[in-house]
């Protein structure tokens, strides 16, 4: 009796310095499998499709419910989370690759430090620490709260950077995610006090202006974040900010 199987072609890499290579796997099918449970099966029995023993494929995961972003990889050409990639919905052989926009650590694991560096650079936080209690912040109008909440869903997964043609080794573009965070923190009534600082940060090298409007980010974001609306809105804000910078302003 022939058993139903799942075929994988996985792009692997032993260390950040070594060359990538492909390895094929064929594992027994189980109902309701996702890419992570398949990778766990390979880890349990690390034998490739030629029947040779090999090292287990390395990847990262955490929440297993698409809220942490750690398991992001390129699946059949599209960057997405592997924990929500159901085998039944994927064409076989399933191709897994690391998101090469980031430095590869090992196999499918990547180093997303650049995203956190970008968040620091654009000051994606609200300074509230002072020498005395600042008290409660002002309330936010409900319609604004609703869209700001959507922006706050970003899990820094890096999918939008991987999808963007302008984020690559030839460019220093920080990518859509940190830009959208600037819009989020500028929308907050307390955060708005540091609006100009954040706008000036994204008017720096590799900032907002490096966007070329391919709009792949908004198509790819697993959280449905309106990244291109954020970018266009920031384009408007920075236009005004550049006039303020040039002519002077009391704002």
């Amino acid at each position, binding site marked *: 009796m022939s058993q139903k199987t799942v075929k994988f072609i996985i792009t692997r890499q032993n260390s950040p310095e070594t060359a990538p290579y492909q390895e094929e796997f064929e594992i027994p099918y189980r109902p309701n499998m996702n890419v992570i449970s398949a990778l766990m099966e390979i880890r349990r029995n690390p034998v490739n499709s030629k029947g040779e023993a090999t090292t287990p494929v390395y990847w990262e995961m955490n929440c297993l419910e698409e809220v942490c972003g750690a398991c992001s990889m390129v699946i059949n050409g*599209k960057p997405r989370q592997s924990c929500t990639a159901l085998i039944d919905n994927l064409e076989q052989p399933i191709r897994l690759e690391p998101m090469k926009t980031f430095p590869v650590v090992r196999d499918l694991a990547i180093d997303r430090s650049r995203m956190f560096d970008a968040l620091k650079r654009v000051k994606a936080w609200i300074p509230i620490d002072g020498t005395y209690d600042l008290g409660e912040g002002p309330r936010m109008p409900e319609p604004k709260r609703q869209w700001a909440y959507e922006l706050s869903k970003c899990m820094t997964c890096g999918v939008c950077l991987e999808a963007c043609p302008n984020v690559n080794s030839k460019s220093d573009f920080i990518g859509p995610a940190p830009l959208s965070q600037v819009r989020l923190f500028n929308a907050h009534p307390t955060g708005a006090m540091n609006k100009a600082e954040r706008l000036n940060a994204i008017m720096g090298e590799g900032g907002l202006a490096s966007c070329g409007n*391919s*709009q792949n980010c908004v198509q790819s974001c697993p959280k449905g974040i309106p990244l291109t609306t954020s970018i266009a809105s920031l384009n408007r804000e920075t236009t005004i900010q550049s006039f303020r910078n040039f002519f002077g302003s009391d704002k």
Partner: protein
Amino acid sequence: MAGSRDFFNRRLHSLLGVIPVGLFLLVHLTVNHFATRGAGSFNKAVNFMENLPFLIVLEFLLIYLPLLFHAIYGLYIVFTAKNNVGRLSYFRNWMFLLQRVTGVITLIFLAWHVWETRIRYALGQTELNYDMMHDILSSPVMVVIYLIGVLSTVFHFANGLWSFMVSWGLTVSPRSQRVSTYFTMIVFLALAIISVRTIFAFI
């Protein structure tokens, strides 16, 4: 970091694409369209342009320098992208690629076009009139080259208007960006019809 060179150059590139280069394109296509009313009309219109006061200053300030900046910085932008329509074949990603491809085609075409008309005229090798274009377009190969070059330029301008409106924050919401897609594609079709009719008027 405030208002870095990157930001300034990119916004300047965007602005120059519309003002003055895009506006000049519209004037240029309009004047040439007189060819559809016969050689006499065309020659009169060209003669008017040729005799504008301070012509060489106007040409440098409104055409050559802005176009040169837009083209050189445009090439830099083209080479900093890593296109991925193969993996992510969304409409806007295709337009992103086409904007870059038509930019490069336009650059090659314009270099040839400026040499063949303006520079040869300046060197006294040709007159600027209906017959010059009639001679150029008497070769079927040149007709094809002109069709490709002109359609690519017109597409680049129309789709560029779309991204110009995003780059300056004029169209922010998804709906406004969708409406401006329809609008700019109508601009493309209108300019395409005008310029193709003009080309055939010289044959």
